[in-house]
């Protein structure tokens, strides 16, 4: 009898659950059957009329029924909630193609990007970054670099002078001398910085630009070491496939001296308009530090040797980013800067 009644209650509850189309209705079912005044509770209240020996059995039955209703109810609530959420999300569809809200982060100057690249590469190879003065003594810019008074190279470089003895440095090579004079060996340094030459402003010239000087001094440094180091540098900067070519050249402060070309990074060396069909692009000057330069800075050339190189930063930036006019680098037009 009791069992039948419970079956009946269960069937009715499950029917009502199935018929519910909103969370509130499911809640009603819950209250009506499982609540304090609900039907199952009423059955339990009627337990006093059941024979004591049957009570455990009936109790178990009631509990089973309750558990079943609860389970189904919970399942339905979950389903219902999911439906409600989905319906809500359907209302919340946005147009993802609307414009982004950006933080408008600023941009680094292309020359600085190139500089940081170069610094990263050489720091990784154990080089220290050092700086030297931009307004410099004639001695450091020329004389100590084997360019004595009356040397033609002094004219070629078109120097800005402040006084007879003080000038705007024409090359970061002056920093080499300061570093060597410190007397701490071995040296592995790069010195980035601003240099000045008396060139009128045009698409390929600027009276002020940037160079990075490199200097290594140690025992047994060879021209082969120079080649190997700069070949690594070129690969890091322009890509793994980059090849280098060294051509003999002349600088007063190095001997032997060379200029380094890299395979054109646009055509890979086949020859294109960018490299004027040559497949190679001139990138830097370098050489073995002249023994007289070592002597002047108090380093014994019989014990130590070294190499030095100088890279034009703007040249790298112009090449890497295909910028066709150097003036853009100093105009600071935001439409230009934003591209880097």
């Amino acid at each position, binding site marked *: 009898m009791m069992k039948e009644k419970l079956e009946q209650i269960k069937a009715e509850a499950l029917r009502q659950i199935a018929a519910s189309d909103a969370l509130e209705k499911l809640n009603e079912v819950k209250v009506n059957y499982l609540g304090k005044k609900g039907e199952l509770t009423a059955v339990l209240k009627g337990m006093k009329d059941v024979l004591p020996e049957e009570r455990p059995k009936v109790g178990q039955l009631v509990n089973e029924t309750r558990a079943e209703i609860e389970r189904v109810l919970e399942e339905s609530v979950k389903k219902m909630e999911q439906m409600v959420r989905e319906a809500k999300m359907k209302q919340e569809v946005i147009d993802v193609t609307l414009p982004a809200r950006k933080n408008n982060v600023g941009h680094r100057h292309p020359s600085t990007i190139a500089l940081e690249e170069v610094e990263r590469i050489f720091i990784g190879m*154990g080089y220290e970054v050092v700086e030297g003065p931009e307004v410099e003594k004639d001695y450091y810019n020329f004389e100590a670099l084997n360019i004595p008074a009356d040397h033609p190279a002094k004219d070629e470089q078109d120097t800005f002078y*402040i006084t007879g003895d003080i000038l705007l440095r024409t090359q970061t090579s002056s920093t080499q001398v300061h570093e060597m004079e410190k007397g701490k060996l071995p040296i592995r340094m790069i010195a980035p910085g*601003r240099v000045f030459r008396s060139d009128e402003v045009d698409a390929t010239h600027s009276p002020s630009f940037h160079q990075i000087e490199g200097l290594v001094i140690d025992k047994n440094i060879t021209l082969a070491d120079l*080649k190997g180091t700069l070949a690594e540098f070129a690969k890091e900067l322009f890509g793994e496939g980059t090849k280098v070519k060294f051509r*003999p*050249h002349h600088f007063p402060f190095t001997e032997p001296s060379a200029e380094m070309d890299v395979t054109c990074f646009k055509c890979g060396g086949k020859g294109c308009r960018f490299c004027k069909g040559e497949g190679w692009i001139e990138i830097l000057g370098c050489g073995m530090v002249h023994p*007289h330069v070592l002597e002047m800075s108090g380093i014994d050339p019989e014990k130590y040797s070294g190499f030095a190189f100088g890279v034009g930063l703007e040249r790298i930036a112009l090449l890497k980013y295909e910028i066709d006019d150097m003036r853009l680098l100093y105009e600071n037009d935001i439409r230009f800067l934003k591209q880097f």
Partner: protein
Amino acid sequence: MNTALSWIKAYVPDLECTDQEYMDAMTLSGTKVEGYSRRDHNLDKIVVGQIEKIERHPDADKLIVCQVNIGTEVIQIVTGAPNVSEGDKVPVVLDGGKVAGGHDGGPLPEEGIAIKAGKLRGVPSNGMMCSIEELGSDRNMYPEAPELGIYIFKEDVEVGSDAIEALGLHDTVFEYEVTSNRVDCYSVIGIAREAAATFRKPFYPPQVFVTGNGGNVEDYISVEVEDRELCPRYCARVCTNIQIGPSPKWMQRRLAASGIRPINNLVDITNYVMEEYGQPMHAYDLETIAGHKIIVRRAKDGDVFKTLDGQERNLDADVLMICDAEKEVGIAGIMGGENSMITDEVKTVLFEAASFNGANIRKSAKRVGLRTDASGKFEKGLDPHNAAAAINRACQLIEELGCGEVVDGMVDVCSELKTEVELTFEPDRYNRLLGTDVSKEEMLEIFRRIEVQYDAVENKLIIPTFRQDILRQCDIAEEVARFYGYDKIPSTLPNGEATTGKLPFKLRIEQKARDIAEYCGFSQGMCYSFESPKVFDKLLLGADDPARRAISISNPLGEDFSIMRTVSLNGMLTSLATNYNRRNKDVRLYELGNIYIPKGLPLTELPDERMQFTLGMYGEGDFFTMKGVIEEFFDSIGLCKKITYDPNAGKNFLHPGRQAKVVYEGCELGYLGEVHPEVCDNYDMKTKAYVAVLDMPAIIPYATFDRKYEGIAKYPAVMRDISMVVPKEIMVGQIEDVIAQRGGKILEEYQLFDIYEGNQIKEGFKSVAYSITFRAKDRTLEESDITAAMKKILNGLEGMGIELRS
């Protein structure tokens, strides 16, 4: 330097290579070839033709119909050229051939011009007779060519043969970039020697021999050199019975290919020898040389001299002059005088080949304002040994070309000549420097090719005097490297004591500055270090403002670049203005660059170079945006103490009510503010602009990347809001000072959340509201703690005339 390959081959006859191979190999051995051009480029199917018959064109007055024998047949060609006659031999381009340019001598088309048989006014024409311009050349190179019209061969050429060959156009002109140390390579012989060494072919320099006419040069001329230092050697020879006429074609062609216009045999010989030997020469008409005496001496200050180009030149005592017994006849090494100029009537010529002090010539050329081919060569410091060789070569050519007779002997006034440099042969040293393993024998073979002799007994290398660049062992090592091949030297990495890569602290701080500026929307600009002194007026700086004490450049590119900047603002404002005028919206820029503060003027020691972090913006944002960037930057480099902003910054170029000094621990680190409207006007900006300038050397002592973790608070915070009516002139900074000083240990934070001036507030006051947070690290605060702290704060505020609003 441009030289025809045929000229090089005259001394290296076994040279066999393509143009590209030549260029690559020479460049790799150190004689850089910039480029080359084939002189027969776009010339195809062009033969020597002979005009057999000329008839008028039946339908055109200006055209003629020619029957031209081209060796294999006679073809008909119609032309409008006015200058041909029957019997003339001319270059003829055949049907299907090509010429390089048009008859007007304009720029050459890249692909050339194809020639096809066709009809002119109804008459068939099966080719074209060519002018020198159509052959891609000009009358400078071929002075015998007519000004307008067909080139006519004057010499005997075979009908039907290759006309390009006959014109010497099967040749390539190479352009060399010679480095300043290789004085010997500013000559055809020098380059030929390098070519021979590079390609391992024998080198045959000219064999110089002069017959002479039996006379004695000392009967004609005497030479006195007053300043031996400026003129270490002066060679003079004399030629008589000079017959001026054109020089032979081969000489004209070679000169033309080098870019030198053939003039006449005498001028051409001096130019030819200058190219060939790299030794400039001068020819005087001996009749114009007073007393038949040459004196080499310095000019006097204030002297004026007319050079042979007709220009008056101002001289001074540092300019070396060539004089005769009475007057100056030339500026040494630069240009001869009008008064001794060679004319076509010349009978007796005095040749001069001298060696002058290179530095002096360079300076003189600058001062006199005249740089010539000759001075360009002299200023490199020529080998005095070369002067005698060159003058003899010129005399040889005089004889060979039938230009005149050579008087025996040479007047040679010569200081002691430099002797050959000798160096011990140290093959191991060279290999050690190069990182190579070149054998001793291979090195000696290289030396042999470049005329460096080896004395096996003394183990010495003897350097020829023309190689003025070889002075030390490292120079020898370079010779080994060049001819062994830079490409064959291995690639290794230095192995020695390991070193640590480092970016110094200053540069790390600058990197941080860039990062923060960019996070805040500022893009990096770059500005010049020099600017115009007018900048100070544009920035409204007072007459005695210390910033006006700037370093001047003694040789600037013009007033706009004449002083080293002492403030960084002009560059920033100029850049903002550029953007503004190009209608770019909302621009934010920053710059990291030095200013240059002299320690005294005129400069006796190097100035103080101070890195400035300059920010500028217009458009969206205001003073407080700029202030935010400063504080973000300070946070990021560990300046966590209180920053004070002093409104009395004293900057004329900023809005007087909207500027502040940035002060940290009592030290001024920079300033910020709104740009003064008048300054904006001066830069043509019709907008508000804001700037901040931070002095990095002042900041760096406070900067640190050290951080220490403080435990995250465990106990709850208590917040109190206060709302005040504040006299207008009191700055919130003063309120904050009171809160900070009186809040006690439990004060955690305070935040302005409202500030208002207007109707509801009485005149002369503003409403200010703060939210104050208290918290203790070790316990939950009691109400009494808060009340006590708040009471102290409120008392302090009331003391400033601030009323609390309820």
